[in-house]
């Protein structure tokens, strides 16, 4: 394995930013500091660039098996490293769904074959994602599953969810809930509010999300179990979680770049790439999500990378599937909308996009210091660029941010000591 010397990069530590060189050999960081002209197979000049721990995405859709026309593990993992992610955990709503150990092992194997970002499967909470019987969680964990979720078809039966949270507690497994009461969201396609009314599109009331967040909090509290809420999008959802955390409930949560960078104004032009679930909300929600990020209520920024083919998205708004791709824009969006604005610093960003998701999923924590695993992202904060959907390296180009001007760009991603891009 070849050696890499990263020169003069800015390394972020909780209290300070320091400029140092980083030497990588045998897949690990062997030395940091002022390393002069140490010989290496590859030298990267990182002057003015951040050298940060590789990003970890705990919520994405790689679509394999079953929907390879949208994305494969290979194209998705490539897109991930282009966005600075060295590890990604993919949701199990594939075809078949990931509810038995053999399928979880398949995801692990395909991730290794692809050889870009590390790929970890999230397995179903219930067999067939039907919301009835629990999967063999312990066996799935042994097969490589890092968390459990019925993302997209959330467990509606509170009794089943109760059993899932309590059973998962036995093995200290993480349950991730896509919080949506389908009886409230119904056939809605956008946030219920003035913009839905203006566009004449059916609304999804925020209550659909908040009812389930409240339920999950109540269950976690009653059982002493932990629960992780996926893609929080509403002010009320953030507040429910904030209050629960203050009471000591073992609840954690994530949001996604689109909830702090965009609002439901995007749907006024019937742009189907702005059709996302939970839906883009209002300005006051966007601000509340940022407040939640600032005060630590929100633990993680995940992408919910959701590729769909052009033919699926280029049709009537009601018929288009939910989701935007997100790997290659996530860090730039977080930098532009959170760091540049002064809401958070780089150290907090690293917690939100690397350390916290690693901890929640039980993955090894990555730091830029001697002895650590060499999963590193090199990020140029000065680079301004325009997102061009057709230039993204994932298979699908359904990108909400097409044409957006962003600050900061991923230059290189190193996984296990190998430069992947």
């Amino acid at each position: 394995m070849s050696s890499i010397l990263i020169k003069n990069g800015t390394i972020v530590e909780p209290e300070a930013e320091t400029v140092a060189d980083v030497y990588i050999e045998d897949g690990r960081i062997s030395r940091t500091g002022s390393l002069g002209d140490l010989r290496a197979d590859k030298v990267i000049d990182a002057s003015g660039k951040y050298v940060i721990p590789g990003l970890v995405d705990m919520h994405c859709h790689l679509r394999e098996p079953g929907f390879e026309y949208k994305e494969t593990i290979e194209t998705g993992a490539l897109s991930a490293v282009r966005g600075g992610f060295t590890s990604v955990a993919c949701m199990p709503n594939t075809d078949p769904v990931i509810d038995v150990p053999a399928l979880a092992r398949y995801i692990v194997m395909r991730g290794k074959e692809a050889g870009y970002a590390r790929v970890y499967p999230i397995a179903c909470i219930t067999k067939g994602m039907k919301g009835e019987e629990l999967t063999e969680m312990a066996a799935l964990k042994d097969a490589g599953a890092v968390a459990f979720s019925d993302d997209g078809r959330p467990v509606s039966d509170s009794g089943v969810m109760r059993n899932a949270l309590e059973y998962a507690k036995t093995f200290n497994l993480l349950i991730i809930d896509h919080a949506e009461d389908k009886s409230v969201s119904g056939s809605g396609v956008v946030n219920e509010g003035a913009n839905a009314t203006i566009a004449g599109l059916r609304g999804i009331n925020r209550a659909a999300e908040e009812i389930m967040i409240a339920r999950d909090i109540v269950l976690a509290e009653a059982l002493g179990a932990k629960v992780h809420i996926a893609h929080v999008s509403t002010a009320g959802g953030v507040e429910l979680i904030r209050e629960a955390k203050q009471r000591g409930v073992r609840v954690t949560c994530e949001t996604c770049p689109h909830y702090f960078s965009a609002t439901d104004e995007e749907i006024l032009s019937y742009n189907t790439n702005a059709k996302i679930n939970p839906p883009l909300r209002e300005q006051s929600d966007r601000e509340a999500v940022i407040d939640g990020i600032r005060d630590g209520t929100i633990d993680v920024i995940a992408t919910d990378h959701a590729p769909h083919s052009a033919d699926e998205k280029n049709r009537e708004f009601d018929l288009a599937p939910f989701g935007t791709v997100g790997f290659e824009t996530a860090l730039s969006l977080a930098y532009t909308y959170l760091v540049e604005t002064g809401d958070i610093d780089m150290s907090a960003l690293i917690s939100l996009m690397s350390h916290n998701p690693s901890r929640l999923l039980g993955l090894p924590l990555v730091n830029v210091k001697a002895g650590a695993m060499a999963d590193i992202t090199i990020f140029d904060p000065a680079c301004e660029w325009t997102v061009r959907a057709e230039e993204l390296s994932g298979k699908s180009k359904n990108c909400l941010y097409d044409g957006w001007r962003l600050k900061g760009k991923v230059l290189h991603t190193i996984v296990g000591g190998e430069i992947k891009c």
Partner: protein
Amino acid sequence: MFKKDLLGLKDMTAEEITGILDHAESMKDAFVSGRQLSSLAGRCVTTLFYENSTRTKNSFETAARMLGARTMSVSAATSSVQKGESLIDTGRTLDALRTDAIAIRHSMAGAPHLLAANVKACVINAGDGMNEHPTQSLLDLYTMREKFGTIKGLRVVLVGDVRHSRVARSNLWALSKLGAETVVVGPCTLIPKGIEDLGCEVSYDIEDALIGANVVMGLRIQRERQKAGLFPSIAEYNAEFGITEERLYGICENALVMHPGPVNRGVELSGEVADCGNSAINEQVTNGVAVRMAVMDILVGGRE
């Protein structure tokens, strides 16, 4: 005069709307006197209907023929749409058949916008989901203007299922641009969030709302809405929100009564109100041909 398409009144100016209404006056003269026009001779107008309709579809076809165009009619139930053809592919097929304009009716908001972005033909929105029904609103405006001489300053009360109504939305956009005062009335479950942003007042009391009304417009109540649990019964709806003779004559006896049709007698309006001297319901249908002639004459007549 304006763009390639007529997708909605939301994005049009008062001048553009008034321009169509002005042009519709000579169109109405020709239509009611049976004088065939020829400005669209050699042109082709297609109605592409994904939802059932009798009056709107026939109105477009009558208007197109009055202008000398030939017409094609595609309905989702009997076309390759049944075989799974996408809207964009259907539109491209119609382009290849050299149609100059497509009047599209679709159950989903934004479908005309998608079509317009993908075809060369002019696209006229003949109703898209809950979004807009611009030619219906134009005929309503024409009818009001014919009766009162102007739209500005009128108090227009829309009663019924505002939430699911594209007619209400188009009318609210246009009426506020033209300086009318608008009120929407119905149970909370049928009033969409943020409707005030369209420039109207919201009332839950019909008798209060009708005070000083110049125009009372009933909006269709579909029985499915009751089944979906949005109100408990047709009887209760009618008792609380029905436009009855007592309410009309007792509160605003000179108000013009309008309805986009088809009327559910005894639900939105009583039979007596539908047939009364103030009712413009049949005149609305005639005016519909006039404004659609005007729209097509402007859009298609000006095409290369």
